[in-house]
C-alpha cells in the first residue's frame, strides 16, 4: 500500500474535461515529480487530491479513499498542499501564517523544535515574524509557504511549481530544504514542476502528463538519461 494512489482519475471544470484517466503513486517517504507542459493537468491533479475539483476514479491516502472528504478534512488527514501562488494569507503576519500551519498539532514540544528548524532554514522568517506577510518578496513568500507546510508535519506534501518566478539561488535553497525535510521527516512529496531538470534531480520517480494523460513514467534517473524523452516531453 502506497502513501498516495491515484487510479484512472478523470476530472474537469464544468464542461471542460482536463484529466482523462491519470494514474500515479507515491510511496512513503518518496519524492515523485509530476511534469508536463502548461495545461497538461498537473495543477488539476493536485486539486483533485485535495478535493478542490470534482473527480471520478480512485484516490487513496494510505489505503483510505478521499472521495467525499472536504478539503479541510483531507488536509487534517496529513496532506499539505502548497498551491501555485503559495496560498499565503497576506492580511496576516508571518508569525500568524506559521501558526496556522501548526495550529492543529498536539505535540507542542515537537512544534517548538520544528520552529527552530524552520528558522534555521529560513532566518528571514524569524526577522520578519511580526510583519505582514504581504511585505515579503516572492521568494520569501515561497519560503514561508514551505516552512508552513513543514510545520504541518504532513505525511504527504503537494508542491505546485515551487520554483515559479524565483531566482535560481532561491530555488536551489528551497529544493535543498525540501530534500532535507523528505530525508529527515520521511515526508512523501508530489512535486509539480515545469523546471523538469531540477525536479528529476530531486525525485526518485517521475510522471509526465500530456493533455490529461500520463505519457511517460519511470525512474527519474532513467528519464534524465533518456534524450528522446527529454527532448519530446521535457523541453531540454
Amino acid at each position, binding site marked *: 500500500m502506497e502513501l498516495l494512489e491515484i487510479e484512472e482519475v478523470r476530472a474537469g471544470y464544468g464542461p471542460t474535461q482536463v484529466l482523462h484517466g491519470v494514474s500515479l503513486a507515491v510511496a512513503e517517504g518518496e519524492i515523485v515529480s509530476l511534469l508536463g507542459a502548461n495545461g497538461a493537468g498537473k495543477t488539476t491533479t493536485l486539486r483533485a487530491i*485535495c478535493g478542490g475539483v470534482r473527480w471520478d476514479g480512485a484516490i487513496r491516502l494510505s489505503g483510505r479513499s478521499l472521495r467525499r472528504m*472536504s*478539503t*479541510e478534512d483531507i*488536509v*487534517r488527514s496529513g496532506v*499539505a*498542499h502548497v*498551491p501555485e501562488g503559495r*496560498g*499565503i*494569507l*497576506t*492580511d*496576516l503576519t508571518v508569525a*500568524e501564517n506559521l*501558526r*496556522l*500551519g501548526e*495550529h*492543529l498539532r498536539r505535540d507542542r514540544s515537537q512544534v517548538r523544535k520544528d520552529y527552530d528548524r524552520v528558522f534555521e532554514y529560513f532566518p528571514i522568517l524569524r526577522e520578519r515574524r511580526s510583519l505582514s506577510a504581504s511585505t515579503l518578496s516572492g521568494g520569501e513568500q515561497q519560503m514561508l509557504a514551505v516552512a*508552513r507546510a513543514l510545520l*504541518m508535519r504532513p505525511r504527504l506534501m503537494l508542491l505546485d511549481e515551487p520554483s515559479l518566478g524565483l531566482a535560481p539561488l532561491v530555488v536551489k535553497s528551497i529544493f535543498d530544504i525540501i530534500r532535507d525535510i523528505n530525508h529527515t521527516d520521511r515526508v512523501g512529496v508530489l512535486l509539480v514542476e515545469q523546471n523538469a531538470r531540477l525536479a528529476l534531480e530531486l525525485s526518485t520517480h517521475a510522471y509526465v502528463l500530456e493533455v490529461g494523460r500520463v505519457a511517460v513514467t519511470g525512474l527519474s534517473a532513467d528519464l534524465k538519461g533518456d534524450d528522446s524523452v527529454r527532448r519530446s516531453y521535457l523541453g531540454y
Partner: protein
Amino acid sequence: MQEFLQQVVSGIASGGIFASLALALVLIYNAMGLVNFAQGEMAMFATFVAFTLIDRGMSYWIALPLTLVIAFAGGVLIQRAVIRPVERAPVLTLVIVTLGLATLINGLAGFLFGYVPRSFPSPFSVHTVSVLGALVSYRDLGVIAVSAIVLVLIYLLLQRTTLGLTMRAAAHNPDASRLLGVRVSWMLALGWGLASAVGALSGIMVAPILLLEPNMMQTIIIYAFAAAVLGGIESPLGAVVGGLIVGITVNLAGAYLVGGDLQLAIAFLIIVAVLVVKPNGLFGRPSVRRV
C-alpha cells in the same frame, strides 16, 4: 461649556452603542462581504429575551451574559439554516434574504412579545456625577464601560487566540485557509454567532434609553451603518472609532444645529458623504475585494 461636555459624554455613550452594532456588521461583512440588514432586528430580539429573563426574576448580571450566549447560538443557527443555502448567490439575493429575515424576526417579536413599549431595567442609575465640572449620568458611564470591556474582549479574542486567528483567516481567504485545515464553514457560523452576541449587547444597552419594542432598533441600525461606513466596513477598529464619531457628531448636531428629529438625517448625510468622498472609510483598505 459644561453643557457641551455633557453632550460629548452622552455622545460617547451613544457611540458605544453604535460601535457595538457596527462591529457586528463589520464581523459579518468581513466573513462574507455582506451587510446584514437583519442585524438590528436580531439585536432587538435578543434584548427581548433578556427582558423576559429579568422579568422572570433573574438578576441583570446573570441575564446579560446568558442572553449573549443565547444570541450567539441564534446567530450560528441563522447562518446554518438561512444563509448557507444562498452563500454563493449574487448580492441582491443575499440582501433580500437578510431583509426577509429582518421582517420575519420583527414580526416574530411582535407576536411573541407584543408591540407595547416596555421599560427595560438598567443596572446603572440615572443619577449624575460631576466629571470635570459637567454632570454625567452613571448610565452613560456604565454604557461606555460595558461597551469598552466587550470591545476589548472581542479584540483579544480575534487577535490573540487561535480561534480568532482561524476566524480571521477564514474570512480573509477561505480557500487558502481550507488548505491549512481550517473548517471555514464553521468559522463563518461562529462569525455570525459572535456578531449576533455583540449586536445583542447594543440592544441591551440602548433599551433603557429608548423603550423596548419591536421597532426599537430600526433607527439605531442606521447609525450603526454610518459608523461602519465611516470607519471602513472591513475594519473592526473603524467600527469603534466610527461609532464614537457618529455618536458625538449626531448628539452635538441634534443639540446645537438641527434639532433632535433630524439626527437620523445627519447620519444619512454621513453615510452619503463618506460613500461618495472616501468609500473605504477611515481605516478601510483601498484594495479591491476578492470576488
